[in-house]
């Protein structure tokens, strides 16, 4: 029974909340007593028996369906029922079955996935031997063996591994999207178990730890082995979803299984985004309900009056039920009219909206022009419900690395001992642009070279070959001073796991120039120097951090010489140089400026030989500092500072952070579409500025670019206010807050302010931390929103989300966030629309995004073409849908005045049933799937076409009011013209035609033709499908009508089709057709005239472009591709560190590194106050730099 109930998805008894997890290794009996979940997972919602009832139960919880049921109940009350039950049941069944089918297919997929995962095999230690078991049968407390490249089965306590120091390497891509390897280490006590099966089987450690939770970065627990207590933290836990790498085998103790694992605890809680049109629609639906009640009230009052005045005297012919009087009749009539007029409430609207959103999503998936050949990645609409919002974007928040740039770093230039390498010069000494065809340096002499590495300057290779000591020292430094992890799967096939791509690029460069970094242990680094294997003793790693902006290593070469190698930001290194390097520094500075001007990321390299004695002395103090309990970081920094001085400059490297293709053009296009772009980057200010310029965001022709870089809250505020006053002198101190129509509503919407000209704003991380505080955020918002481009540097993931949230909350605008890395996830989830670049940094961003594609440049197609079309189509659809339903319904309202408000319908019940489902369904879907005002090329040509979406012009409350009036007019025509034409006439043979059935047929035919013509007027793009749908639907109408009113149907279903013969008897009458023609003309021509007038007098940009399209019969030539001009500037570039801390700790001590916290938004809670995060830094502003040549 219990299993049946639980199979039904109903938890009979609320599980006792687990307060602590207690388990014992290898003791299934003991562990089973706690009834922990085993490792089987279930993401599916239904099984064969529960599917129908459960799904229906869920569906009826939706308001729309519940309303249907309410109507159905009303219809079953004979006194109220004004329509037969089938008018409600047929649409309801259709809606239900469509949803049912969709849910069914979803759930089948989930079942398949579950089965696949649950049936994976893993080695489990059972009764002293390893047995292959299915994942689903693994229990808490089991010990399992994992092998290289296997998925981690459950959340495990790492017991032992094949690697030295009991390390294991894991990839967490599935969990947090990061592809770099992470290290975990087992406790020594368990590590000693090794792979001795008997020992492992005898292991009886007891574990106590937190109950299951979703915090990926936190784990606290204790392990008791032989009476001794060991503390267990996150560093010893392997989480389900990770993959074992570079580790032959490891053993683990299952702590959490299946649904309790952190992976499962984290899944399934996606935020459900809704578009602004959804919100508007909800508001409108409420209004419509009110409107319906209003109409029904009027009609029921009418009924009361009629019953009182006339009905009383009509009792002779139509006796009332016992006890009925005028007021009871009015009450019943109210509900009867609720049934009849229910078509104003757009229930089937929701289904249609889903269909056409899905269709437009498919068009995105199918678009070849958003398919990236190199990585075989098509664009993907991961959320199918947000398309039309793509046509309304006002703010784009973009990550930089990997989004604007390729996140491929290439070693491009270097300056060694005052000589610059890397430029290609022709015979005349002129600089040559490097293209695909430029001759590449041949590295075939170096068997370990990376074939993907290109360099074009031959001089450098010659210098290396000639044995220039400086050049060799330069590359030796690059090969030694880093925290890259090598991986050599087969002999000579080296892969580097670098924390930052810059480092990878530099080590790869050294590799190709003959200084191959081959392998490392905590104490040594093995390098192949010009073919000679050499092993350096690694004595210390002085790791990188954001304050030091440099890293050093101290190594002893085979000859026993001690050397410190240091690389870091030029400004930092230059401060610590020996006076003898001054001259070289000047030359190098020149080179650095040159590199920076080209947007390259630079590093200065220096070294220093050390005395054995001094070093020993330093080493002791270093050890002391590194083991000190308090202020360890500061003490270490001071110790490092001591030894990193009097350095000898070697030169500088320049790494190119390549922009993605088409980024400047895309940004220019988006700017033309009046979309504001904010770049939020973790990079430092100089780097970000440079990228800003090279991708056309910041432009030389901008009036001014404000730099906000202050260290106190007040200074930040002052700079923001100054900038604002400069842009708009008349702007007041109080933000222009749009008055909310609902008093007491919290949100303050800040209106746009007028600005003369284009401005840019750069704000650094420290200032941003101040500016994002509650009392200053509006100031930031006002200033930033006045600028065309905004660049925020040194932004933490949390701040990214805060910035997006700020705009989202206080601006009535749609925001889009685009990024590629795990650090963008928070902003992608926060923004109205999140776009993930399926690029270098793993899948995390894509997984949390709504749309994904491979290249930033596809964004313009997504917005300017797909977004615009989707918006246009959705609005057209809504406008037309409301129009046709209102028109349909209002006719009933008018008829009420002629039939004693008795809730008599105007149309045949079958027509009422089929109107939305059959006669008008496909044409309107055809319209809203295929319509395009102008084709994609013209959309690109005129990005201004995007503006109406941003301003919500096509569908708003105003537009809705206009639809209401239009429908009112149409319904007046559609009722009163047939009424006047028919009320006193007869057929051409003198027989009856003013009867109810003929009138109903006439009215419904007029209506259908009028709304079809209206549909034709809305359609801008008549494809064959549109024709087919429209004409097809009309033919179906006549076919169905004639069939339904035929003799055969009547004789079979006598009481359901009482309209026998009506079609034959009235549709052969000329006056019927003359009436239809007249109503059609009267309904459509005013619309045509009005539109024509507006096109002539107040043409919109849309009309203008369409006019141009007509004039240019041929398609326009594709946009001329603009190449970004090479900018000659003295702006200093950023230096090439973009990461936080390196692997230094791990490399030296064998202790595992601290895992950088950049996973899920929930995990950023540690930095509630953004200030805490940012270390005070001083940056020079652009002005200072330009002033000092």
């Amino acid at each position: 029974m219990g299993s049946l109930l639980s199979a039904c998805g109903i938890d009979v008894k609320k599980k006792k909340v687990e307060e602590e997890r207690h388990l014992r290794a290898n003791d299934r009996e003991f562990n089973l007593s706690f009834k922990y979940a085993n490792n089987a997972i279930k993401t599916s919602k239904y099984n064969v028996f529960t599917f129908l009832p459960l799904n229906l139960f869920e569906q009826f919880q939706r308001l729309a369906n519940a309303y249907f049921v309410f109507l159905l109940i009303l219809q079953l009350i004979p006194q109220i029922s004004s329509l037969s039950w089938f008018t409600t049941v047929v649409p309801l069944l259709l809606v239900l079955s469509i949803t049912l089918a969709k849910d069914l297919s979803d759930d089948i997929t989930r079942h398949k996935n579950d089965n696949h995962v649950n049936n994976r095999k893993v080695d489990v230690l059972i009764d002293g031997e390893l047995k292959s078991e299915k994942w689903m049968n693994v229990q808490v407390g089991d010990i399992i063996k994992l092998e290289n490249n296997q998925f981690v089965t459950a959340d495990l306590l790492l017991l032992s591994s094949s690697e030295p120091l009991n390390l294991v390497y894991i990839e967490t891509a599935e969990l947090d999207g990061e592809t770099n390897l992470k290290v975990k280490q087992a406790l020594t006590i368990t590590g000693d178990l090794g792979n001795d099966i008997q020992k492992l089987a005898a292991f009886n450690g007891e574990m106590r730890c937190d109950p299951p939770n979703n915090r990926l970065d936190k784990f606290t627990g204790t392990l008791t082995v032989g009476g001794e207590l060991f503390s267990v933290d996150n560093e010893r836990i392997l989480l389900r979803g990770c993959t074992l790498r570079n580790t032959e085998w490891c053993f683990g103790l299952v702590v959490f299984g299946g649904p309790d694992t952190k992976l499962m605890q984290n899944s399934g809680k996606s935020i459900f985004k809704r578009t602004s049109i959804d919100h508007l629609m909800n508001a409108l639906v409420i209004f419509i309900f009110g409107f319906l009640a209003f109409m029904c009230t009027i009609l029921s009052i009418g009924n009361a009056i009629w019953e009182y005045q006339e009905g009383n005297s009509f009792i002779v012919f139509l006796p009332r039920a016992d006890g009925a009087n005028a007021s009871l009749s009015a009450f019943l009539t109210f509900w009867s009219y609720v049934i009849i007029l229910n078509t104003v409430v757009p229930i089937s609207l929701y289904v249609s909206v889903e269909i056409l959103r899905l269709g437009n999503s498919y068009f995105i998936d199918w678009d070849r022009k958003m398919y990236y050949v190199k990585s075989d990645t098509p664009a993907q609409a991961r959320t199918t419900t947000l398309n039309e919002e793509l046509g309304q974007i006002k703010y784009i928040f973009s990550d930089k690395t990997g989004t604007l740039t390729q996140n491929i770093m290439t070693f491009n230039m270097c300056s060694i001992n005052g000589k610059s390498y890397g430029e290609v010069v022709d015979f005349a000494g002129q600089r040559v642009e490097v293209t695909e065809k430029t001759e590449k340096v041949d590295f075939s002499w170096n068997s370990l070279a990376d074939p993907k590495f290109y360099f074009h300057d031959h001089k450098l290779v010659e210098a290396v070959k000639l044995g220039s000591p400086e050049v060799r020292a330069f590359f030796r430094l690059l090969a030694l001073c880093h925290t890259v992890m090598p991986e050599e799967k087969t002999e000579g096939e080296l892969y580097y796991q670098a924390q930052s791509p810059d480092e990878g690029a530099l080590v790869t460069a050294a590799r190709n120039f003959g200084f191959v970094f081959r392998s490392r242990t905590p104490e040594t680094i093995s390098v192949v120097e010009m073919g000679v294997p050499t092993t350096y003793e690694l004595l210390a790693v002085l790791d990188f951090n954001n304050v030091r902006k440099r890293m050093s290593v101290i190594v002893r070469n085979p000859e026993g010489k001690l050397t410190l190698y240091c690389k870091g930001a030029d400004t930092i290194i230059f401060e610590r140089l020996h006076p003898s390097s001054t001259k070289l520094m000047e030359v190098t500075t020149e080179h650095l400026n040159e590199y920076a001007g080209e947007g390259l990321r630079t590093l200065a390299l220096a070294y220093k030989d050390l005395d054995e004695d001094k070093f020993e002395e330093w080493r002791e103090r270093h050890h002391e500092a590194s083991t000190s309990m308090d202020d360890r970081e500061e003490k270490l920094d001071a110790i490092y500072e001591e030894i990193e001085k009097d350095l000898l400059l070697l030169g500088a490297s320049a790494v190119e952070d390549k922009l993605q293709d088409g980024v400047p053009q895309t940004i220019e296009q988006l700017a033309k579409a009046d979309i504001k772009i904010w770049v939020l980057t973790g990079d430092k200010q100089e780097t970000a500025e440079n990228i800003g310029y090279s991708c056309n965001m910041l432009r030389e022709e901008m009036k001014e670019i404000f730099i906000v870089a202050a260290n106190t809250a007040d200074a930040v505020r002052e700079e923001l206010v100054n900038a604002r006053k400069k842009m708009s002198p008349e702007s007041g101190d109080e933000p222009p807050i749009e008055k909310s129509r609902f008093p007491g509503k919290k949100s303050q919407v800040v209106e746009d302010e007028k600005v003369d000209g284009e401005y840019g704003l750069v704000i650094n991380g420290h200032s941003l931390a101040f500016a994002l505080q509650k009392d200053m955020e509006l100031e930031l918002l006002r200033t930033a929103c006045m600028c065309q481009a905004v660049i925020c540097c040194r932004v933490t993931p949390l701040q990214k989300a805060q910035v997006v949230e700020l705009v989202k909350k206080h601006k009535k605008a749609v925001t889009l966030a685009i990024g590629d890395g795990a650090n963008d996830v928070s902003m992608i989830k926060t923004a109205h629309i999140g776009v993930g670049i399926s690029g270098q940094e793993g899948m995390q961003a894509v997984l949390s995004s709504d749309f994904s594609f491979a290249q930033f440049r596809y964004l313009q197609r997504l917005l300017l073409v797909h977004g615009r079309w989707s918006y246009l189509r959705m609005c057209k659809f809504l406008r037309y849908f409301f129009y046709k339903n209102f028109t349909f319904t209002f006719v009933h309202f008018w008829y009420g005045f002629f039939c004693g408000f008795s809730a008599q319908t105007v149309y045949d019940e079958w027509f009422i049933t089929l109107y939305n489902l059959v006669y008008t369904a496909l044409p309107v879907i055809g319209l809203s799937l295929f319509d395009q005002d102008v084709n994609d090329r013209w959309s690109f040509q005129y990005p201004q076409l995007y503006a109406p979406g941003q301003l919500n012009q096509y569908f708003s409350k105003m537009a809705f009011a206009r639809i209401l009036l239009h429908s009112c007019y149409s319904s007046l025509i559609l009722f009163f013209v047939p009424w006047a034409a028919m009320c006193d006439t007869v057929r051409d043979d003198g027989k009856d035609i003013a009867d109810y059935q003929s009138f109903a047929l006439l009215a419904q035919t007029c209506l259908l033709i009028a709304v079809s013509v209206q549909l034709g007027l809305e359609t801008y793009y008549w494809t064959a499908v549109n024709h087919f749908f429209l004409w097809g639907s009309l033919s179906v109408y006549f076919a169905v009508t004639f069939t339904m009113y035929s003799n055969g149907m009547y004789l079979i279903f006598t009481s359901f089709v009482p309209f026998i013969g009506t079609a034959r008897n009235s549709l052969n009458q000329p006056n019927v057709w003359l009436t239809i023609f007249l109503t059609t003309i009267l309904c459509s021509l005013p619309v045509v005239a009005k539109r024509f007038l507006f096109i002539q007098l107040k043409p919109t940009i849309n009309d203008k472009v369409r006019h141009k399209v007509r004039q240019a019969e041929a398609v326009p030539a594709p946009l001329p591709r603009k190449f970004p001009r090479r900018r000659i500037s003295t702006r200093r570039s950023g230096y090439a560190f973009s990461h936080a801390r390196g692997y230094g700790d791990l490399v030296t001590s064998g202790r595992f590194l601290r895992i950088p916290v950049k996973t899920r938004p929930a995990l950023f809670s540690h930095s509630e106050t953004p200030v805490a995060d940012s270390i005070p830094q001083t940056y020079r502003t652009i002005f200072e730099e330009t002033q000092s040549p």
Partner: protein
Amino acid sequence: MGKKQADTGPLSRRPDNSAFKQQRLPAWSPSLTAQTVLPTFYILSLVCLFLGVWLLITVQKTHELKVDYTNAGTCEQCFELRKHAINTGTPCTCSVQFYIPQNFLGDVFFYYGLRNFHQNLRRYMDSRDDAQMVGRKNNLKAPSSYCAPFDYGANKVPVAPCGAVANSMFNDSFTVIYYPTNEPEVQVPLYRKGIAWYTDKNVKFRNPPTNNTFTLRQAFEGTIRPLYWQRPVYELDDTDSNNNGFINDDLIVWMREAAFPNFKKLYGVLNRAQGPFNQGLPSGNYSISIIYNFPVEPFQGQKELVISMVTWFGGQNYFLPIAYLVTGGLILVAAIGLTMVFVKVGKKGKNMEE
């Protein structure tokens, strides 16, 4: 194109290059330019004006005469008599004089008209049983509950035909008499059959099966007539036994409920086979004598006799001709206005410049 590509390979996920998927379907994009809108307006206005004139001429040749006999002439007494339900059984006959000013040429149709009689009330309209009237034996004896309270009479005897519609059937009858100037009066001969739709007469309404031995009367055995009727359904027409039962023409005509409270229903067609009527109805003095049964006083209604000619366009209805004339005129005015706007503003495409 269109063909499914192999699942592997470097371009395996590339979308198809079909016009449909790339949204490049060939299409016709009409737009509201002066070249399309203005001619349409002029042409439509001409069409409407032409139709208006044509229809107006047609309608003006169609004559119609309405004689309200509710309490006119000698019908005053009958009107008073019918005020009270007790007198239902008392027959009352009256007559009304009227004058036809011009000749009604061709076929002439006689209608009875009712004003303010709501045949279109929802409960009234539903109060009928089509299954009974199509002659199904079971339904004959078990009328639908929709017919209540006219479904069963006293002692649960089923009513045939049941329901409020049938019960309230119009039961006045007319005799129209022509008074030629120099000749003796002539009764205007009327066809009282063939006045219902063919489909109604032959499909929708059928009698329960009968044969030579099993008469209609026997078929209806076990049912009683509706409350307000004076004769049972199988004896509605005493002149033609084939016009009895559910297929009685008058019953069928009545059962086709009117859409609006003022309506007219066909009573008879002038039989032009005889004497003065072979051209139609000559102008002159006429009178109707009415067997006045139908009470209209309770619902403040009125009864009338409508005599009308019919053309291809139907009866005399001035709405459509006038509506077409007005519409045509309005379109013409609009067309001229739009033309002026176009000439002034949009002719050289100036308004389309950015």
